[in-house]
C-alpha cells in the first residue's frame, strides 16, 4: 500500500539535505518545506550548519554574565513602566496599543544608547512589554519560547521581533560563512536567493550592484543554508502566531507582527576618537563592547581583502532583509497587512554607527519613530511599498 506520510517525510528529508548542500532550492520548494517543517527538523538543520550539537549551540547562543544582568535590568525598567500604564487604565483609547517585543540589541541595548524600543516606549499610546536581549540570537529566542508564554498572557495588539544578526556574527560565526570568491557559484546554486534579489524593490535607486556582485561571491553554502534556516524560523513563528500553526486557528486574531532589518554595517576596528563631546560614548563603546570582533576580525581571519569586506557584509545584509520581507509577504494580502517590515537600509550612512553593529541613538530614535508611524498608519496606506516602511523616506511632520 502506498504510504503518503512516508513519501512526505522522504521529500522533507531530501529537501533538508538539499538546503544544507545549497543544492538549487527554489522558492516553491522552500515554501513546501516551510509548511512541513517542525522544531525537531530545525534543530537538525542548525546542528549541521554550525557543526555542533544542540546543547553546544544553545550554550553558544545564550546571553550570560554581566550583559544578561544589564539586559534584565533594562527589561525590568520597561516592564515596570508597562505595569504602571496598565494600572492607570491603559487601553481605553482606540489608538492604545499593547505591544510585546522579542529581539536583540537593536531592541535592547542595555547601557548608554537609546534604542528602537526605548523610543517606542516614549509614546503614551504604547504599553511595551519587552523580552529583548542585547546579544540575543534568533535561535535562542525561538527555542526558549518566552514570547509564547507572554503572548498567551498579554494577548497583545502587536508582536515585534528582530533577530538573526547575532546568529550570523556572534562568536566570530561570520568567519564560518565566508569563503574564497567563487565567481558567484554558491549564489547561482540558490535560485531562491536569486529570486529574493530579482524581486527586491529598490527605493530611490539605492542599490549598489557592484558591491552586491562582489560580496556575494564570498558567501559560502553555509550562508545560504543559514538564510533559508532563518526563513523557516520566521515562517514558523509567524504561522504559529497568525494562523495557529498546525491547528490552523490563531489564538490571537487581529494581532499584527512587525519585523525589522538592519542597515549595511561597515567592518571596522577604528575607535573613532573625536572632539565632539556629544559623541564621547563612541570610543568608549568601541573600546570595551566587542567592536571589530563581529565583522572586521572574522573577515580578516578568512583573508577577505579590506576593499571587499564592506561588500561581503552588504550582500549578506541585502539578502537578509529581502528574506525577512519575503516571509512577511506570505501572510499579507493586498487589503490586509498582518506583517509589517521596518527597513533600515541606507538610513544610517557612513557616520551613523556607534560601533560595527549598532546605530547612533539619533538613528535608533528615527527607526523607532517610523515604527510608531507604521503602527498607527490606518490600513497601512502610507507604507513605502507593500508592507514595508523604508526608514530613510520618512521625516518628522
Amino acid at each position: 500500500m502506498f504510504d503518503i506520510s512516508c513519501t512526505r517525510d522522504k521529500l522533507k528529508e531530501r529537501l533538508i539535505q538539499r538546503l544544507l548542500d545549497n543544492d538549487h532550492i527554489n522558492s516553491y520548494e522552500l515554501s513546501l518545506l516551510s509548511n512541513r517543517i517542525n522544531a525537531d527538523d530545525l534543530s537538525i538543520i542548525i546542528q549541521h550548519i554550525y557543526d555542533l550539537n544542540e546543547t553546544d549551540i544553545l550554550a553558544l547562543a545564550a546571553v550570560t554574565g554581566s550583559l544578561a544582568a544589564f539586559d534584565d535590568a533594562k527589561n525590568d525598567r520597561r516592564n515596570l513602566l508597562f505595569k504602571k500604564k496598565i494600572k492607570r487604565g491603559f487601553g481605553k483609547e482606540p489608538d492604545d496599543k499593547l505591544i510585546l517585543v522579542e529581539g536583540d540589541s537593536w531592541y535592547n541595548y542595555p547601557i548608554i544608547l537609546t534604542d528602537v524600543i526605548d523610543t517606542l516606549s516614549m509614546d503614551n499610546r504604547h504599553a511595551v512589554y519587552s523580552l529583548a536581549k542585547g546579544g540575543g540570537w534568533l535561535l535562542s529566542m525561538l527555542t526558549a519560547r518566552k514570547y509564547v508564554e507572554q503572548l498567551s498572557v498579554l494577548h497583545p495588539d502587536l508582536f515585534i521581533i528582530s533577530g538573526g544578526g547575532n546568529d550570523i556574527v556572534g562568536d566570530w560565526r561570520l568567519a564560518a560563512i565566508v569563503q574564497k570568491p567563487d565567481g558567484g557559484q554558491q549564489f547561482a546554486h540558490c535560485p531562491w536567493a536569486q529570486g529574493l534579489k530579482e524581486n527586491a524593490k529598490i527605493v530611490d535607486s539605492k542599490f549598489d550592484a557592484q558591491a552586491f556582485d562582489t560580496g556575494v561571491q564570498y558567501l559560502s553554502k553555509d550562508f545560504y543554508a543559514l538564510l533559508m534556516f532563518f526563513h523557516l524560523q520566521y515562517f514558523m513563528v509567524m504561522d504559529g502566531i497568525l494562523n495557529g500553526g498546525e491547528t490552523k486557528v490563531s489564538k490571537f486574531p487581529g494581532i499584527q507582527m512587525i519585523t525589522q532589518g538592519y542597515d549595511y554595517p561597515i567592518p571596522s576596528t577604528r575607535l573613532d576618537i573625536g572632539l565632539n563631546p556629544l559623541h564621547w560614548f563612541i570610543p568608549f563603546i568601541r573600546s570595551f563592547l566587542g567592536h571589530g570582533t563581529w565583522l572586521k576580525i572574522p573577515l580578516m581571519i578568512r583573508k577577505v581583502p579590506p576593499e571587499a569586506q564592506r561588500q561581503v557584509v552588504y550582500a549578506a545584509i541585502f539578502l537578509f532583509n529581502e528574506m525577512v520581507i519575503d516571509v512577511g509577504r506570505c501572510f499579507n494580502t493586498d487589503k490586509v497587512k498582518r506583517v509589517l517590515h521596518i527597513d533600515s537600509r541606507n538610513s544610517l550612512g557612513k557616520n551613523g554607527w556607534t560601533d560595527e553593529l549598532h546605530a547612533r541613538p539619533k538613528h535608533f530614535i528615527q527607526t523607532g519613530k517610523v515604527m510608531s508611524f507604521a503602527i498607527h498608519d490606518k490600513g497601512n496606506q502610507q507604507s513605502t511599498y507593500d508592507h514595508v516602511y523604508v526608514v530613510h523616506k520618512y521625516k518628522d511632520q
Partner: protein
Amino acid sequence: VKIYRVIIWVLFIGIILYDLILIGMLKSQHISGNLFTLPLWPKEKAKQQLATWSHLCTRTGRTVLEVARINTWIDFLFIISYVSALIFVSYAQMQKQHRVWLNALLRLNFPLAILIGVLDGLENITLLHDMAPYVVGQTYCSPFWFTFLKFFFTGWALLILLASLLTPKKRLPGMVQEEPTITSTGFTPSALAGKS
C-alpha cells in the same frame, strides 16, 4: 542593579539630612562660615577661617575644624551617591526624550557626572590637606578652580535635566513620507547566475 540603586538613594538622602542637621547645629551656636562655600573664598580669608575653626568647640566637644574634617571624609561617600544618582536620573530622562539634541545632552551628563565627582574629590583632598593640624594657619592651598568647575558643570547638568523635565512629550511626532521611486534590481547578471 536594583539593590545598588536603593543603597545610592538611601546614602544620598541620608547624607543630605546629616549635613542639614550639622548646619543647623552650627548655626544655633552662631558659628560663622561654612565648608560648602569656603573653597571659593579668597586665600587669606579662608586660611583665617580655618584657624578660627580650630579654636572653636561644638556642643559635642570636638572643634569645628575636626567636625569639618569628618564631614569632608563623609563627602567622599556623598560624591559616590550623587554621581550615581545624577547618572540614574539622566538615564531615566534620556529614555523618555526623543528630541535628538536633548537626548544627546542627557547622555553627556554621564561623563559630566563622573567629572564633577573627580573635581569634588580633588577639592576634598586639597581641603583635607589644608585642615591638617600642622598646616592650619600656616599655609593654605586653594581648591578654588576644582570647586568653581564642579559647580559650573553641576549647574549645566542640572539645567539639562530641568530642560528635559519641562519639555515632556507624550506622543512621538507624526511623519511624512517623501515620494519614493521604486525600481527593481532586475535579473541577476548571467556571469553570476548563468550556471544555475
